[in-house]
């Protein structure tokens, strides 16, 4: 029999297939179960583990999802799990961790929590809310609401249509950090090798996704989704979409910018906080997820950063898009998948005996662009590394404020933004600044 690695992929995504080809793996047919490595959709993984199918994975078969990853990746379940986790932290008196895990905007599930939401809505009349389908993706079905009547009308429509889909309504973060006057969110890849013990790595090749339209800090125009939603799937349909860069900006560049404009301590804290988000979100579900040793998962975290440099978790994707829109995008995704495969495969794969220890058992695997978030397996050897988040020291915070003060002294009012909240949002730029920005570039294409 052919001793080569047999692999399978659901949708022939170019970057996945090229990775397989580079490794000289044989790609098997859709209905062939004799694979060693399967990069599939979430439902493909659920089917693989469906007891009715009666299919048992061999020691040398590995798949890119945990069977019940939806505990983290469906918005309503994620919110439920994280709320419960924080309640437990509070009960145990772990207040530092309780504070550190406060990264979800206030969120309610509809229709179940409708009345709770109404109460909250009345308490905070100035807040805007964003409504999303619990299981949707690519920005479909999302709208932003300020008035309750909008929600009532929408609810009546859903009821009339007999829809039983769950929705979530979240506080809309209306003070995002703007760069060049534009809103962005972050897509960051986290690899989970195992939930128990928890083993998580973050990839350095994340990116920021920018809106093409300028963010209007004065008037919130809920109709103009171009300035609010960063999904490339949405932005792609805009007139100003630029196919040279697709509105994407590397994480390294973001860090360079934050260091230059907000200082070193602030940049370090932002990136530590982002790692902390992943640590707590994974911790919140580690006991409910079926931590099968045939499984690994590369999650795409969507994180929004506000103008106090606090990162908020928007959602977690189990199947982050692996289609590439630009050359850089292709390189990024190709590299991430290559690094994932290296980290995941046991030494000696696909030899049956060598694979007994399961995913991530090769502790000498090259990490590529991955860096450690938490590895409870290694913690035995290196105690203390389990808490990835250094408590935000007051020294760091005061450095930031000092810098901000020094800057505004020397450079006028538009300088470094102090960390206090409202009122300090980006001043509407000077009269000479233009809002038509990338027009010529996009038209030429």
């Amino acid at each position, binding site marked *: 029999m052919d001793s080569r690695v047999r692999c399978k992929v659901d949708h022939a995504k170019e970057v996945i297939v090229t990775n397989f080809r580079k490794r000289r793996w044989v790609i098997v047919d859709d209905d062939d179960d004799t694979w060693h490595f399967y990069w599939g959709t979430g439902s493909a993984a659920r089917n693989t583990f469906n007891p009715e199918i009666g299919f048992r994975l061999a020691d040398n078969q590995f798949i890119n999802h945990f069977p019940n990853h939806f505990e983290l990746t469906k918005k309503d379940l994620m919110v439920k799990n994280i709320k419960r986790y924080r309640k437990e932290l509070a009960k145990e008196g772990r207040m530092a961790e309780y504070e550190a895990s406060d990264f979800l905007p206030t969120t309610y599930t509809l229709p179940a929590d409708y009345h709770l939401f109404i109460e909250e809505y009345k308490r905070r009349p100035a807040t805007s809310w964003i409504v999303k389908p619990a299981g949707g993706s690519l920005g479909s079905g999302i709208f932003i609401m300020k008035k309750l009547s909008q929600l009532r009308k929408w609810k009546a429509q859903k009821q009339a249509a007999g829809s039983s889909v769950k929705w979530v309504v979240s506080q809309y973060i209306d003070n995002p950090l703007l760069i*060049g006057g534009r809103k962005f969110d972050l897509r960051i890849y986290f690899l989970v090798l195992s939930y128990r013990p928890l083993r998580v790595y973050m990839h350095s090749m994340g990116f920021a996704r920018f809106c093409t339209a300028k963010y209007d800090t004065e008037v919130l125009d809920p109709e103009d989704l171009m300035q609010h939603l960063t999904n490339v799937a949405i932005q792609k349909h805009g007139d100003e979409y630029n196919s040279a860069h697709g509105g994407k900006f590397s994480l390294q560049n973001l*860090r360079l910018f934050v260091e230059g404009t907000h200082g*070193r301590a602030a940049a370090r804290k932002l990136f530590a906080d982002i790692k902390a988000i992943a640590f707590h979100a994974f911790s919140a579900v580690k006991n409910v997820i079926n931590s099968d040793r045939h499984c690994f998962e590369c999650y795409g975290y969507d994180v929004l950063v506000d103008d106090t440099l606090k990162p908020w978790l928007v959602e977690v994707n189990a199947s982050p898009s692996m289609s590439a829109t630009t050359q850089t995008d292709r390189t990024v995704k190709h590299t991430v998948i290559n690094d994932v495969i290296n980290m995941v495969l046991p030494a000696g794969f696909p030899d049956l005996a060598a694979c007994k220890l399961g995913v991530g058992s090769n502790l000498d695997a090259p990490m590529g662009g991955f860096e450690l978030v938490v590895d409870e397996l290694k913690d035995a050897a290196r105690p203390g590394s389990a808490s990835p988040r250094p408590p935000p020291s007051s020294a760091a915070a005061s450095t930031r404020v000092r810098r901000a003060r020094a800057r505004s002294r020397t450079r006028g009012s538009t300088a470094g933004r102090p960390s206090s909240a409202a009122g300090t949002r980006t001043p509407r730029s000077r009269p000479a600044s233009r809002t*038509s920005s990338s027009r010529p*570039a996009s038209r030429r294409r």
Partner: protein
Amino acid sequence: MHAMALAADGSKPLEAVARAREAWRTEVVRGLREMRAKLGLPWARLRSAAELAEDDDDRAVAEDERLVALLDKGLVQPLAINALFRALIRITNPNATAAFTRFFPLGLISLALAVPSRSELRCSWDALSLGNKCCDDSLAPDGPTEWEDAHYEAGKALLATGDVDALRDWARHGIPSSLRFDAWLALLLVAPSHDNALHFDALLGEVEAWDFAIDAPLRADINATANDEHYFVFLDLIRDVALAFVRDRTLPSLLALPGISLVDPSSGAAYPPCGVVPPEGLAHMIAPLAYLSSAPDGVYSVFRALYTRHLVRLSALASGSESLLTLAAAFETWLAELDPVLAAHCTAIGAPPLRAAFPWLVRGFSSFLPPGQLLALWDRIVAYDSLYVVPALAVGIFTLRASSLLECASPQDVAGVLSNLSACFSATTRLDH
């Protein structure tokens, strides 16, 4: 004429260079006049009250559309790097006979110019030698080392004291991103002052009020940054700084080498007011500074100092030290000394090394390196107060890629090997040559 005046070090410019510069000036001016005639615009035009009353966005859109139409018709030619290259390699010394020409006959620069020897550089750049730590040794965010923390704290303390000499010594080991803005201001001797902000605001007022014919090629240049994955978000900032720059009348007296400009016959004033026709790629030189500060006036102050003191030399045809001419000669000389086989091979297949390296030199590597690496390179320019790091990096890239280059059989192959430089930087900034 400027060019015949004594250089700052008291030396007389070479006659051949002065002649070449004058020819180049004539060419540039002729090109500008042709462009202006085709555009059908006056050099400078005060916008009417009606125009100013229009919505900002609408006008910007209209201007962009007009420009795109002109670009499509091929009417606007930004001051091209290729033309500068031809002007540079045209320079010959009529007195040179075979006995007096440079020992290395493969180079494109036919003047025998004194350039620092590699051992001289090694002495003055001792901080860069292997074994000394530099803070961009790992540009990847692996987390700071103890040395980097200490280096950062030392820099912060030096900035507080205002001791520029000590700061310069410190900066030779690299500048942490978070101190770069303040350190560059100090090392470029810009006094932080509220006047800088007022000055910039006044220039923006002029951008608003005056329509310049020379804005057309500049806008084409600016719009190119909208397609750059590293800089597209900063387009507005880059546009403001670039358009303000050409209107800055205080620049001519600050320029380290005289730039090429025209004289407005009606007023006798230089045109553009900044005293230098913006070279192709100016917007890409501004762009990296968007990472230093989000305050446009701060970015402007740094750029103004950096350009007048250093970057202006990169497109200057002059015989003084550290002009484009001497930097190009340094590149050819060092490469020929270090790897004559490589230099000869490239020349033999019709791809003389200077041709590939020329855009890197003229632009100071801007648009060729990702911003983190580019700023680390420019840290060296600012810290050593010298542009020789630019040709040194160019030589480093050639030697790093030597084995691939020696396999090339055509200029296209060479271009392919040298198309992505982002992996070269950390390997070559440390001077092992």
